């Protein structure tokens, strides 16, 4: 152990854990050790209560009825949008579009901005580490308009050299679409520098912020990006809600995504005109309660010392990395400097799925598989990895439980 394993004294993880009722349960007769927050985070009581309160006392459709409950629900829904705006420091609340998730947000950009502004031969720059949700929408766009996908490679330790972006971004580049933080490796990409390169080439930049926003404060204006997307359920909020943030002028220039109620100005059979953003992109009854739940998650995170929480996660990661390396036969995948609290690894002689099955019987939940990043698995030369990811509620003792369970797994499998 060469690193201090302390957590900031201002951060009371026991108190945070008490806010998450699921953490008190057992799995297979063992205390739950939840190390899969990168796939989906658990929910604090404050979020659960907010959802229950809306359904119990405040629920109606939004943007419609001229009655008290609808006005209340509309106000709560729009208040959630304002909470998101503040959380990411967007310039205008109208730049925050609610979607059903980050995947839909990326598909929205590909299907609207992409189809309108990209043509044959235009280039989109991605990286090897992208999640399938930041690959496949661009492949669909490629089929539609004939654009070209360029892939920036990842180094052996999981870092990505900014020089590789300088090589990949050129006069034909129209978009750079990259993860803020890799969901497999934890690598934090140099997104500010990438944004500068993209803009110097006249291209836009989209950041997949699913993992980025959960581990650090995000300021979309500081990051210099044009599009930022994330999902609610990884941010301790409900499923079925995500956010597309885009600069106002981009949203105004983009055609609608889906047609329906709520996204129109006037409709006649001869011609329909669109509502201004964000309503233009929110056809149909939106995920009202999920948006309000996301707002409650943001309130909850704002009630914590987020700098201390980030330091706590970093301390967990360091302890996990040093502890994992002491288990014989384990190889860490992703060791880039400054990475986020996500650690993939492989173990000699044990397939990740077998490991995850044995770990589960010790109450330890980890993700095993390709993590929706098959191209990255190919580059790493593996079909799958085991991944432990840490959230604001995890403890050093849970790292110890992971290590003990891995040693038990070796007894069963080797």
């Amino acid at each position, binding site marked *: 152990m060469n690193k201090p394993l302390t957590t900031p004294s201002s951060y009371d993880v026991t108190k945070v854990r008490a806010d998450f009722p699921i953490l008190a349960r057992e799995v*297979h*007769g*063992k205390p739950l050790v939840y190390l899969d927050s990168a796939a989906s985070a658990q929910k604090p009581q404050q979020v659960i209560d907010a959802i229950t309160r809306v359904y119990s006392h405040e629920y109606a459709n939004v943007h419609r009825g001229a009655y008290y409950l609808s006005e209340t629900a509309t106000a709560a829904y729009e208040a959630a949008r304002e909470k998101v705006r503040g959380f990411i420091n967007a310039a205008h609340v109208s730049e925050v579009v609610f979607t059903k998730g980050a995947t839909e947000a990326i598909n929205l950009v590909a299907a609207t901005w992409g189809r309108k502004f990209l043509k044959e031969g235009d280039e989109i720059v991605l990286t090897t580490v992208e999640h399938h949700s930041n690959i496949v929408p661009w492949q669909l766009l490629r089929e539609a308009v004939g654009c070209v996908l360029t892939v920036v490679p990842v180094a052996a330790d999981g870092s990505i050299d900014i020089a590789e972006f300088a090589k990949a971004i050129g006069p034909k580049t129209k978009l750079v679409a990259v993860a803020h933080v890799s969901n497999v490796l934890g690598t934090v990409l140099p997104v500010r520098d990438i944004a500068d390169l993209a803009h110097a080439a006249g291209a836009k930049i989209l950041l997949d912020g699913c993992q980025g926003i959960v581990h650090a404060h995000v300021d979309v204006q500081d990051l210099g990006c044009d599009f930022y997307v994330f999902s609610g359920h990884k941010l301790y909020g409900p499923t079925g809600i995500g956010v597309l943030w885009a600069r106002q002028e981009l949203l105004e220039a983009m055609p609608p995504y889906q047609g329906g109620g709520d996204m129109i100005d006037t409709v006649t059979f001869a011609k329909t005109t669109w509502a201004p953003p964000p309503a233009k992109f929110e056809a149909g009854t939106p995920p009202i309660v999920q948006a309000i739940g996301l707002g409650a998650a943001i309130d909850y995170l704002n009630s914590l010392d987020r700098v201390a929480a980030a330091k706590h996660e970093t301390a967990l990661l360091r302890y996990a990395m040093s502890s994992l390396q002491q288990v014989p036969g384990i190889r860490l995948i992703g060791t880039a400097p400054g990475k986020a609290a996500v650690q993939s690894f492989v173990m000699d*002689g*044990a*397939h*990740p*799925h*077998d490991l995850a*099955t*044995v770990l589960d*019987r010790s109450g330890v939940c980890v993700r*095993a*598989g*390709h993590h929706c990043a*098959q191209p990255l*698995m190919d580059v790493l030369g593996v*079909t*799958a990895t085991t991944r432990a990811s840490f959230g604001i509620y995890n403890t050093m003792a849970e790292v110890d439980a992971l290590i003990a369970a891995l040693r038990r797994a070796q007894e*069963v*499998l080797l």
Partner: protein
Amino acid sequence: MNQSAPLNDDLRSLYQEIILDHGKSPRNFRVVEHASCKAQGNNPMCGDRVTVTARVSPAGVLEDVAFEGKGCAISIASASMMSEALAGQPAAVAQQLFAAVHDLCTGKLDADQAKAAVPPVLGDSIDKLASLSGVRQFPVRVKCATLPWHALISCLDGKTQTTTEK
């Protein structure tokens, strides 16, 4: 009540000696020479891939069955035991044996019932394949055990691709 004993029993029954042996040292892990058919099985959940090759004689006998690929202990052991069980058997029994293995894995049949469901010549094979039945306590892992069988059946049907998600 002792909570840990049944857990260990579940895990022991999943990762029996014979499974670990076949998982670590798979038999017939190669490509069949002069194969008459070939099919790849994918498990999109985990990215595991198994490619099965076989040579069927004009008389309809499975002269050789082999496989290659990457997978967990369960899928590799299943493929290995499958290749041993079917070599020299009429191709027509493959589907029957798969049905018996599938029912063993889902808990529909126990070993004796599975034995009764296949031709007597496959009785010894069922004894070995019954070791896969530990997956019945782990529903998400049933697909691991059946992946190579799906690939084999596709192969014999003249298809080249299959998935556990169909």
